[in-house]
């Protein structure tokens, strides 16, 4: 059975009422995703723990930041975690406020079975991408490098890097529709 118990929207409503148990439930549901993203970007468990705590404390203090009308809480948490982790990685002030993160995702991503299918599809797609496309995409998304920096590091022309990144992210797009058609 998918996500037994209260829905994410119900838990967020309870968060707004100051219910600590709701936060504990959300951590049990999505703590792994948040920690995994932070660890993937930062590569260090202590820093990943700090970011994970910061993300859930933000959710606790300002649950209104997540707009359930816009879709998936899991996707929102993953993206916000990635932003914060990149800021930490590059030792810079936060580049965007969590309040500015706009995300309109398929709400089905909060269903465990659907999300697992999409994740599996994305991983398969990534594993089949040409290595140079995958590397460019990961350097941009998980290392927080600009296309200019990637071009310098890989000694490739800027235009080539741009094309590789766009081709790769469009390939990932197919995962959602393919998983939905299963």
């Amino acid at each position, binding site marked *: 059975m998918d996500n037994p118990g209260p829905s994410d929207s119900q838990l967020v409503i309870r968060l707004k*009422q100051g219910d*600590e*148990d709701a*936060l*504990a439930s959300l*951590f*049990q549901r999505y*703590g*792994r*995703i*948040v*920690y*995994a*993203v932070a*660890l993937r970007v930062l590569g260090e*468990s202590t820093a990943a*723990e700090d970011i*994970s*705590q910061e993300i*859930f*404390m933000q959710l*606790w*203090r300002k649950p209104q930041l997540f707009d359930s009308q816009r879709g*998936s809480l*899991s*996707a*929102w948490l*993953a*993206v916000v975690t*990635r*932003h914060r982790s*990149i800021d930490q990685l590059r030792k810079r002030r936060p580049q965007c406020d969590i309040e500015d993160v*706009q*995300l*309109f*995702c*398929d709400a089905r*991503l909060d269903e465990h079975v659907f999300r*697992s299918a*999409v*994740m599996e599809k*994305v*991983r398969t797609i*990534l594993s089949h991408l040409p290595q140079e496309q995958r590397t460019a*995409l990961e350097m*941009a*998304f998980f290392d*927080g490098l*600009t*296309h*200019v920096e*990637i071009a310098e590091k890989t000694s490739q022309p800027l235009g080539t890097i*741009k094309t590789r*990144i*766009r081709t790769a*992210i469009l390939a*990932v*797009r197919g*995962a*959602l529709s393919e998983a939905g058609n299963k």
Partner: protein
Amino acid sequence: MAFHEQFAEDLALHALGALPPDEAANVGKHLEQCPECRQEYLRLTADAATLALSVEGPAPPEHLQNDLMRRVYAEPRMTNILQSRVRWWSLAPVFSTALLALFAILLWQENADLRLENTEQTAEIAQTRELLHRATHVLAEISSPDAIHATLVSANQKPQPQCRIIYMRRSGTLVIAANHLPALPDKKAYELWIIPGDGSSPIPAGMLRPNANGDASMAIHRVIGERTIIKAFAVTVEADAGSDWPTSKPIMSGQ
């Protein structure tokens, strides 16, 4: 209408945060004026979100949730803040006289002390309730019919290290209790592995750090997929931070 093709690559880079600030600002200006490109940009941010969601990694350490909840309980509740604001404003006319102001301040101080005490007690009760709930949940799962019970023993003789593992496939919970584990040199720790039945690489399932008596226990959640077939469990000695794959021969294994 389709989005502007000349912006196609920049939109993708912008959605991934891979444009330098000046170029990002230019694309941002265009997005303010172009609904078609804005729509494509939002699709790309959703694509990036699925990329973030696809990240695989170990479960967060057990203490992380406890640390988080301790911080949460230590913070004043939002509802309390709201109540205190209302009370302050409602008492404003009272402060018009010096005598009543003094009286109100004394009352406020007493109230604050009581509120602090109440918050601490509430936090304690909630934490205890959470621990009780989890303990009850684990015990119920251990005795459920779908729980897989396994015992791992070492080839070494006395004292005989032993590791008991219970894996609840349905909930994905893995409970491990080990005894008589020999002490390890500094910067070394025991690491538990799940050996999948499909022949793929062992999956790291967590670090066992025994106490002075050689006892160690932990419970982890969703370290593998529900459909993963488990062939065996094994324990190796690894660096203290853990390893992504076994670097030494198992000192214990079993199924």
